[in-house]
């Protein structure tokens, strides 16, 4: 019943060309690092060339889902990542509308991943970008992130599963790409009901020109689709399989963003400062930086990928990932409505409670889907 494929002739050398794969992901990571660094030069907030959590939060604010005036802007990078993934997936015949693998659980996981990210002030992607800017607070975040992934891997090895996906109508897979096109129209038309941070009013006002941000997103989305780049997957695969491919992408982003930042710092200043205090859009509470990223790392392993990877998979037609993305946006809205998000001043009492609740909720989801399988 299965049709033979021409690629069988490559059987002798193996179907996977390891060196080509490695070259692709390292080259892709290097390009993404340069883009992340340059976006700051073109106007994005410092150490925030890319931050999926922050940008989804800004987008939620622009749509009026929260009222935190300093962080409201429809970020074209997000639109670009989703559409870049969709376009490349369509071109490569990989666009595949599917879903049905515990969509509401994924929504909740996305929600709490965002609570963790906004405790730390950044997604795993921005964690790398912050390290590349010399922000050593991100090391505390990285420690928590690593431990969170370790916890998630324990459940994966014990049989954790959110069950199977099924093929769905094309429309189902096109929901997020279509929504992003609507967001792009709203951004360009800027009607009065869309909220934009006023100039000088906070990080939301700092952004590169629309077309630059959009192009950056398209390139990063396409690279991430092609290489399956994932900040969580890198560490997860090393622990699970001693597989180093994805971590090479992670490392390549760090190296190229760091080199770019050092060059820009020498040329114009303000792109690299090694230390803990006074870092842009960051706080110095090590414990809560670690706990925030612990929650994010744990939740992302259960989701099967970091926030960037969720955007990319949603772009490929995976409506479970769309649920996760909407969960991330809802989490961001709640974080600002309930005073859960940290600021440069540090974490809030409400935020600490929310992170503890989040860790408990994510652990409960992990346990229930690991030890109570009823297929």
């Amino acid at each position, binding site marked *: 019943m*299965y049709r033979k494929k021409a690629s069988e002739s490559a059987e002798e050398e*193996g179907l996977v060309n390891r060196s080509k794969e490695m070259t692709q992901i390292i080259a892709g990571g290097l390009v993404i690092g340069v883009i992340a660094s340059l976006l700051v030069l073109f106007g994005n907030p410092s150490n925030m060339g890319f931050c999926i959590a922050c940008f989804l939060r800004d987008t939620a604010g622009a749509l009026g889902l929260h009222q935190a005036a300093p962080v409201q802007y429809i970020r074209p990078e997000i639109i670009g990542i989703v559409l870049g993934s969709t376009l490349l997936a369509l071109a490569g015949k990989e666009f595949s509308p599917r879903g049905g*693998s515990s969509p509401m659980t994924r929504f909740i996981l996305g929600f709490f991943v965002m609570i963790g990210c906004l405790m730390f002030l950044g997604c795993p992607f921005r964690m790398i970008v912050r390290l590349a800017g010399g922000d050593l607070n991100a090391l505390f975040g990285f420690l928590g992130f690593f431990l969170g992934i370790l916890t998630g891997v324990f459940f994966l090895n014990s049989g954790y599963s959110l069950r*199977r996906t099924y093929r769905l109508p094309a429309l189902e897979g096109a929901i997020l790409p279509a929504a992003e096109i609507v967001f792009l129209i709203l951004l360009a038309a800027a009607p009065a009901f869309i909220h934009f941070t006023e100039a000088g009013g906070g990080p939301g006002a700092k952004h590169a020109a629309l077309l630059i941000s959009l192009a950056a997103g398209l390139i990063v989305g396409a690279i991430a689709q092609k290489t399956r780049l994932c900040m969580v997957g890198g560490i997860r695969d090393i622990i699970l399989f001693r597989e180093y491919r994805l971590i090479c992408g992670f490392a390549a982003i760090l190296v190229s963003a760091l080199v770019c930042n050092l060059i820009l710092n020498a040329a114009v200043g303000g792109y690299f400062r090694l230390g803990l205090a006074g870092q842009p859009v960051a706080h110095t509470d090590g414990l809560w930086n670690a706990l925030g990223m612990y929650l994010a790392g744990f939740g992302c392993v259960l989701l099967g990928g970091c926030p960037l990877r969720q955007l990319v*998979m949603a772009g490929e037609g*995976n409506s479970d990932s769309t649920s996760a993305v909407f969960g991330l946006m809802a989490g961001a809205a709640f974080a600002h409505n309930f005073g859960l998000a940290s600021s440069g001043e540090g974490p809030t009492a409400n935020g600490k409670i929310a992170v503890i609740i989040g860790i408990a909720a994510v652990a409960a989801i992990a346990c229930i889907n690991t030890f109570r399988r009823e297929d």
Partner: protein
Amino acid sequence: MTTIDARGLSCPEPVIMTRKALKSKENRYTVLVDNVASRENVTRFAESQGFRVKLTEESGQYRLELSK
């Protein structure tokens, strides 16, 4: 021959299932997956474990035949 049905599952689950199945030390396995990322990941893992992988495709579903 053991068949591992990982259709509808996304990575890393198909690779974990394959790794667990490989503990039975047989010389041949069949793995069914239905997305390209899982196909690549299972193939990469199987080849790293010394298996040769034969791929056949039918309307978006992939049958990976692993043999030593």
